């Protein structure tokens, strides 16, 4: 089978098109712009729709409109753009409209810069925008997964009637790797709640306003029920040498690639290291982490932020095992060596 060398940011568009995406709306931003470039090139050639919006407030509103009209719709952006989308993301959740949003995380806060960070975690995973809401959050760590996750995102979004986030980072967006493309094109199914501008869908109403307190409460409970269901239905993660691991890295995205290398190096040195890499950040693999807490001596959460996922890990293991944070901010990426040396030091300290 043919493999295509492509950027993560391009792969996500190939995956989306093969996944049946019909519409792309977006505003350019580094380091996510190649997503818009690939979409502008490929969507029209494939008979799909591409429009550059005037801002991210509009692009997310366009997702809202297109999703309401039955489209399979996607946008790509980075932190500053996601901040602007917060309003629309909340409305999408409130009206239960399915859409796919790619966040190629860059260093913040504010304008920050275009280097990688993983500091949008709290914002995306714990509900971007006002109200108690969330969406499925997928965390690719390769160009292949940028493609694969976009490919399956629409089905997930429609199944749960929610936003599916692909939470990437500047390196996973910019990396080029061989990608094997899915061989089937998905079709966009008819949705009986959507607005098609015809007699059958005329009585449909898409709204997030509830005037009666008990109805709004019921709506919230319904949404939360959906999120709880996700926890038993779609949690996904990868384990690297966890069988006999004494030291467990927990990392996603680019950090997990570096930790993977670190695990290999540490094993060569006789240290039993392993890694759990969440592929879904929401729902979070808490159950598996709780199990591993009974086995390992220590968990190390490596992330490019002030320590955001680490809170979810701590919540999952409930103090059953020490959880340490290795954190980098401002776009700095650790070399494998740096992580190896730090863990070696920690191991030595704990055994002395």
């Amino acid at each position, binding site marked *: 089978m043919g493999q295509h060398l492509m950027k993560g940011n391009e792969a996500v568009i190939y995956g989306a098109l093969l996944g049946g995406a019909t519409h792309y709306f977006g505003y350019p931003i580094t380091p996510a712009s190649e997503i818009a470039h690939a979409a502008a090139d490929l969507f029209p050639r494939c008979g799909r729709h591409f429009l550059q919006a005037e801002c991210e407030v*509009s692009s997310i509103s366009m997702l809202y*409109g297109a999703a309401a009209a*039955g489209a399979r719709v996607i946008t790509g952006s980075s932190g500053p753009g996601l901040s602007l989308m917060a309003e*629309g993301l909340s409305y999408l959740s409130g009206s239960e409209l399915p859409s796919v949003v790619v966040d190629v995380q860059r260093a913040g806060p504010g304008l920050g810069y275009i280097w990688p960070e993983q500091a949008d975690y709290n914002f995306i995973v714990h509900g971007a925008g006002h109200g108690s809401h969330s969406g499925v959050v997928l965390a690719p760590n390769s160009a292949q997964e940028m493609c694969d996750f976009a490919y399956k995102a629409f089905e997930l979004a429609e199944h749960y009637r929610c936003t599916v986030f692909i939470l990437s980072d500047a390196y996973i967006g910019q990396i080029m790797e061989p990608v094997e*493309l899915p061989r089937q094109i998905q079709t966009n199914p008819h949705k009986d709640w959507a607005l098609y501008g015809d007699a059958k869908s*005329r009585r*449909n109403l898409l709204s997030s306003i509830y005037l009666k307190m008990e109805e709004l409460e019921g709506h919230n409970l319904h949404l939360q029920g959906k999120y709880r269901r996700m926890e038993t239905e779609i949690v996904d993660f990868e384990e690297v040498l966890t069988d006999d691991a004494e030291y467990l890295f927990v990392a996603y995205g680019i950090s997990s690639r570096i*930790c*993977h290398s670190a695990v290999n190096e540490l094993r060569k040195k006789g240290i039993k290291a392993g890694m759990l890499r969440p592929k879904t950040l929401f729902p979070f693999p808490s159950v598996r982490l709780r199990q591993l807490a009974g086995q390992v001596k220590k968990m190390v959460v490596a992330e490019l932020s002030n320590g955001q996922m680490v809170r979810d890990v701590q919540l999952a293991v409930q103090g059953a095992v020490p959880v340490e944070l290795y954190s980098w901010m401002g776009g700095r990426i650790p070399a494998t060596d740096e992580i190896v040396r730090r863990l070696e030091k920690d191991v030595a300290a704990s055994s002395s």
Partner: protein
Amino acid sequence: MHTIKHQKARSLYPTFERKAPGADVSHYCPGCGHGTVHNLIAEAIDDLGIQDRTIFCSPVGCSVFAYYYFDVGNIQCAHGRAPAVASAIRRTNEEAIVISYQGDGDLAGIGMSQIVHAANRGENITVFFINNAIYGMTGGQMAPTTILGQKTVTTPEGRNAANEGFPIGMAEIISSLQAPVFIERVSLANAAKVMKARMAIRKALRNQVDKKGFSFVEILSPCPVNWKMTAVEARRWLENNLEPVFPVGNLRDLPKGPFDRVDKKKVARISNKKILEILGVGEEEVHAGTVQLQEEQNIKIAGFGGQGVLSTGILLANCAIAEGLKTTWLPSYGAEMRGGTANASINISHTTIGSPIVSFPNVLMVMNLPSLDAFEDTVRPGGAIYVNSSLAPRKVRREDVAAYHIPVSDMANNLGAIQSASVILLTVYALVSGAITIETLQKVIPLSIKRKNLVDLNMRAIEAGIAWYGENC
């Protein structure tokens, strides 16, 4: 003598069950203009026969509950965003009739960007803009269209231009754009003016049915409760105070839109087979080579921007794929590139590659002196450095690495192909390391370079590299 029987428009629900079971009065205050406009729109929908096709975008504001009344497809939008929502619905369902119904805070305040850009794109939608110069739903605050001196709860002394600026004329702003086909401002001040409003509303909807483009009707409408007047006083105040600031009348009525729209029904559908072809799904692989790496290759290629450093890295990664190996390519990007130097990290391996970042390469290819200075010390002992000696005249200082000094810029110049200098360097690397074969390089180059003459130059560059290797290694 005949009787005139007043019937409610079919596009309005007979009773408003979405409001409350059996409800037959609206939530609007007595004397409010919304009810009048709702009726005019519903009658036009009926007469144009577009009830099933209509999708009504409600704003945030008093008319947020328009879906109580209109028996058409309904969607409620975030404050001000209805024109963006409507644009996307339009681009999803070609035959839908899309209405954006907005108040003055929604359209002229928070949603100024969305309305201007939807209008500027000439979206084939219809926008009804209810301008009552005040915020109704939130309790009588200043609107962007509040007139000078008008008292509101947030301008208790009256609107003062020096502090709050002037009232915004939206119809005039929209008419500064090229794309809209129909722009009219109407008033609900009296029955005769309501009839004019009725005509404008119909025209604006008919234009959409005829796929003419963007139509905009601004409707000056009374808000007696927040104006603190009776219904009759409010209509008089509207006529005497709002109309002089916002002159009623038609600002544009074009016979056709300013550009041709593609009729999607006439465009042939692109088959899945064609899409798979466009995306390159199922393309044959060049060939799966049988290269056995002596060790994983962690490569850094560095040089000036424009020396083809990044593209040479991509070429190398493509060759690795053709050899059946795993590979990653990661660019340096951003300020570094703008500063004129660029580098790429490439890994080639038989097994899954963890970190794509090459901090300590075992292969360094440098195209200029700054790159040699920057990265020489990062190379792992036992590694190899390939230097473009034309631009990096000094020797490699390290003694624990293999060094190859190749005047690739001069060699490429002699070939008349300065842009292929890095390919000569890559050729020597291929021959020394055995990580990729020359056959693969020769097969991959024509696949990644479209221009025939550049392919030939690169082929000659490969030959030059082979010759240098033969003479020096």
